């Protein structure tokens, strides 16, 4: 779905320019390749009947306020600050005058992410800064040029003699100054907006905000309770809804006994949904009580028979059985042929289990369908406004322009809020009862109706030639397809490859001449989703564990071995050296083990080192220190890159220590934080993150600590105990069993 970004592709060639009493609005239209229009639209609905033109809006008011549209979802990753800061930098705006806003209309032609083929509003895969960066710089630079030209005309001086200070145009020769707000009061639109080329953009030495650290704009709202999330929506006349969902996907309510639920005071309606039963009432407490009194039998579906532990055993057998080919993912050379020539072949098998996003804000949405059913207003925090619009438009049979989405802050996303089923149910319920409906999932609904990171079984072979060179790599991943699951919900056909599962398997940090990673796709009927760290997390666990097993067998230091096979990948070599230094890698440690892991995800590179101890009696693993180095190209907000890396290490630590989802007879056995145990404060090690800002364009940084945790911790445990843990999580009972205690 993402396309290769040509940094020169965004070229401002069309424009709208509005001078208003309130000030000046630039509707700077970034014209992409018109062919992109014809490109397959994964959202399933034709987006446009004219040239596709995502743009960036800047409004300068006469009071000097500068409103900048920030189209990405804000879920803690900081883009509500980072993206406007990119525009503000090239505009040379005074940051204290900048007011970020979400788009008032969700029109991909104006505000969509140029990084996606369909310019989708989709904040995932750490793609916001990566996708918008260039377009926003150009938009800011062009707006600045328009201001300069307007002043040059008014003052009768050559534009070349003018310069800018934050939000002020300066003519040094005559010592004259004029603020952007004052310019907005008189400026008129030029017939042609100036064209911005590379040479017109700032050089890094001139950046005021890019590469510096700005306080995040919404943080003050988040310490007073004032920040609004979807669940905080208050709409006049609204009623509440709770939904009893099918325990497995595809289960339709067959018999519904609502007698007792109807008797709860405040219950107004009970509505049958495709895969659930909705209870409508005048309070949250009434709908929750009534929902628990419903008696529903569910129709059969493939997922009803799923048993995850049994299936994982089957996946492991399939991974081992090379007679069944998978879908290759970015192969290099001919791994199978090279393997046949290998003098020595190493083999490793690894397993990971289903994981739950566990975002703190349970899924919810408020919807108000108009009386004629032809329009709808929605209040929610979503990672995917484009898919939301497409699914709701299809459901109601209305045009996308008849949907008003009020985007809210997200109480955690991590991939979960890319999916729209709660929004769609809220719309169905509002339509059914003719009122605004606020649908809130309980935590139990959120766990049992969770959409999980798929469980995986890995079989890897690594072939060395007689001279000791790693010449062949063959990684088989057996897992369900996340892309297949999500494309059904979005009404599109499954893509041929599942990037969500397979990211991280091509290991570009190790330029082995022959590499094959393949996805053997199994279907078991589980609900699935993209998940912070995506395929990199399980793939790095498998890859980096085997690398350590090989290093041990060959008597090599794990980092020295990786530096050798990373020959030709200098960015990763630099990170490996950085974490070796940060962790004082070669120091002897008493009672503690140390382990390393790496990952590359969409051109972002991370290396991490964990220092652990193990209580042999209880099997409890304690991570004491974690050192990480990240290269995400140009670090637009370095402190935030560090915070995201630290946060994602802590997120990933839970997957290693305890977290797992178990499905039996199609039912999710876990139900709340009491039995799905995420990282708590007492689990957290000292964490040191080095942000290496490089000259490459900025890539993502929202999730990149996750993948290096499991592998580094597992390698550290192996170094300490001599015992290799080949499946996640490293729960105490599993560790104790492996240690033979």
């Amino acid at each position: 779905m993402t396309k290769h970004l040509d940094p020169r592709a965004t070229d401002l060639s069309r424009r709208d320019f509005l001078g208003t009493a309130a000030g000046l609005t630039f509707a700077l239209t970034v014209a992409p390749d018109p062919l992109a229009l014809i490109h397959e639209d994964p959202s399933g609905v034709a987006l446009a009947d004219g040239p596709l033109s995502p743009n960036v809006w800047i409004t300068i008011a006469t009071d000097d306020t500068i409103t900048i549209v920030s189209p990405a979802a804000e879920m803690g990753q900081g883009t509500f600050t980072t993206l406007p800061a990119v525009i503000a930098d090239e505009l040379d705006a005074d940051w204290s005058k900048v007011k970020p806003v979400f788009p008032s209309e969700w029109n991909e032609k104006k505000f969509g992410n140029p990084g996606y083929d369909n310019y989708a509003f989709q904040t995932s895969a750490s793609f916001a800064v990566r996708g918008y960066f260039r377009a926003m710089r150009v938009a800011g630079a062009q707006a600045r040029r328009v201001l300069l030209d307007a002043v040059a005309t008014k003052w009768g001086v050559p534009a070349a003699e003018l310069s800018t200070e934050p939000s002020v145009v300066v003519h040094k020769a005559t010592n004259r100054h004029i603020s952007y707000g004052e310019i907005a009061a008189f400026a008129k639109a030029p017939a042609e907006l100036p064209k911005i080329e590379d040479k017109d953009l700032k050089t890094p030495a001139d950046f005021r905000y890019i590469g510096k650290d700005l306080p995040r704009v919404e943080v003050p709202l988040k310490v007073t309770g004032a920040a609004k999330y979807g669940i905080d929506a208050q709409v006049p006349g609204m009623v509440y809804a709770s939904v009893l969902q099918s325990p497995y996907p595809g289960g339709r309510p067959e018999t519904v006994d609502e007698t007792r639920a109807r008797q709860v005071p405040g219950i107004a309606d009970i509505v049958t949904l495709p895969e659930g039963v909705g209870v409508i009432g005048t309070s949250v407490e009434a709908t929750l009580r009534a929902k628990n009194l419903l008696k529903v039998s569910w129709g059969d579906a493939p997922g009803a028979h799923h048993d995850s532990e049994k299936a994982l055993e089957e996946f492991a057998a399939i991974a081992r059985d090379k007679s069944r080919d998978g879908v290759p993912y970015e192969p290099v050379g001919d791994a199978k042929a090279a393997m046949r020539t290998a003098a020595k072949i190493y083999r490793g098998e690894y397993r990971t289990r289903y994981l739950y996003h566990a975002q703190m804000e349970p899924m919810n949405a408020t919807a108000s369908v108009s009386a004629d059913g032809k329009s709808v207003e929605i209040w929610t925090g979503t990672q995917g406004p484009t898919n939301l619009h497409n699914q709701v438009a299809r459901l109601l049979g209305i045009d996308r322009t008849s949907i008003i989405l009020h985007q809210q802050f997200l109480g955690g996303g991590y991939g979960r809020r890319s999916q729209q089923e709660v929004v769609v149910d809220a719309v169905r319920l509002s339509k059914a009862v003719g009122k605004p409906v606020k649908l809130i999932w309980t935590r139990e609904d959120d766990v049992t109706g969770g959409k999980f990171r798929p469980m995986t079984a890995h079989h890897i072979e690594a072939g060395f030639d007689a001279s000791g060179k790693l010449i062949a790599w063959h990684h088989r991943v057996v897992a369900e397809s996340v892309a297949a699951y999500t494309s059904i919900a979005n009404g599109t056909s499954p893509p041929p490859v599942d990037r969500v599962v397979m990211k991280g398997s091509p290991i570009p940090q190790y330029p082995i001449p022959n590499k094959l990673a393949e996805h053997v796709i199994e279907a078991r009927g589980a609900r699935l989703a993209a998940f912070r760290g995506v395929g990199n997390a399980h793939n790095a666990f498998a890859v980096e564990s085997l690398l350590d097993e090989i290093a041990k067998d060959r008597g090599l230091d794990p980092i020295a071995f990786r530096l050798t096979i990373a020959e030709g990948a200098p960015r990763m070599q630099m990170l490996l050296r950085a974490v070796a230094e940060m962790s004082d890698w070669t120091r002897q440690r008493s009672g503690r083990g140390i382990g390393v892991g790496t990952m590359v995800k969409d051109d972002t590179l991370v290396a991490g080192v964990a220092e652990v101890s193990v209580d042999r009696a209880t099997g409890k693993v304690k991570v004491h220190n974690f050192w990480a180095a990240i290269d995400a190209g140009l670090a637009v907000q370095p402190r935030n890159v560090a915070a995201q890396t630290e946060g994602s290490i802590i997120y990933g630590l839970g997957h290693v220590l305890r977290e797992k989802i178990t499905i039996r007879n199609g039912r999710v056995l876990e139900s709340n934080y009491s039995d799905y145990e995420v990282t708590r404060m007492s689990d957290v090690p000292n964490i040191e993150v080095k942000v290496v800002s490089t000259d490459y364009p900025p890539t993502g940084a929202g999730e990149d600590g996750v993948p290096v945790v499991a592998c580094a911790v597992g390698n550290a445990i192996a170094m300490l105990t001599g015992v290799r843990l080949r499946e996640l999580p490293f729960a105490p009972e599993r560790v104790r069993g492996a240690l033979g205690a």
Partner: protein
Amino acid sequence: MVAFTVNGVRRELGVDANTPLLWVLREHLKLTGTKFGCGIASCGACTVHIDGQATRSCATPVSTVEGKSVTTIEGLSPDGSHPLQKAWVAEQVPQCGYCQSGQIMQAAELLARNKAPSREEIIEHMDGNICRCGTYLKIISAIQRASREG
């Protein structure tokens, strides 16, 4: 009818006695700064003070606060100027921010009792509050800063 004080204002509400205080605050009184996380007192997102004691409002029937004084994040300070709120901004603690009302209310109870808690005391006091974004180390720094700068 239940009567109690919220952020210094006396309230009388005709709600079912078993209604969790959380929903009374959020949906009846529209004080949405207190968050719903788990419903079983397992995550701390709903933490408020009842007569000064940090309490999980999701597992507190409203009848049990009859005559008591409830403080929510909205009432911790009139203008976000509590030392913890200032420290939270200075340390740039929040990411998604959803758990942070509860984190701050939990931390406020600690500092009210113990002006200079050790790192271990902080961790012990805060371990019941989950932050899925992983801001725990920033939370510790902010509590230490508030303790210092109080």
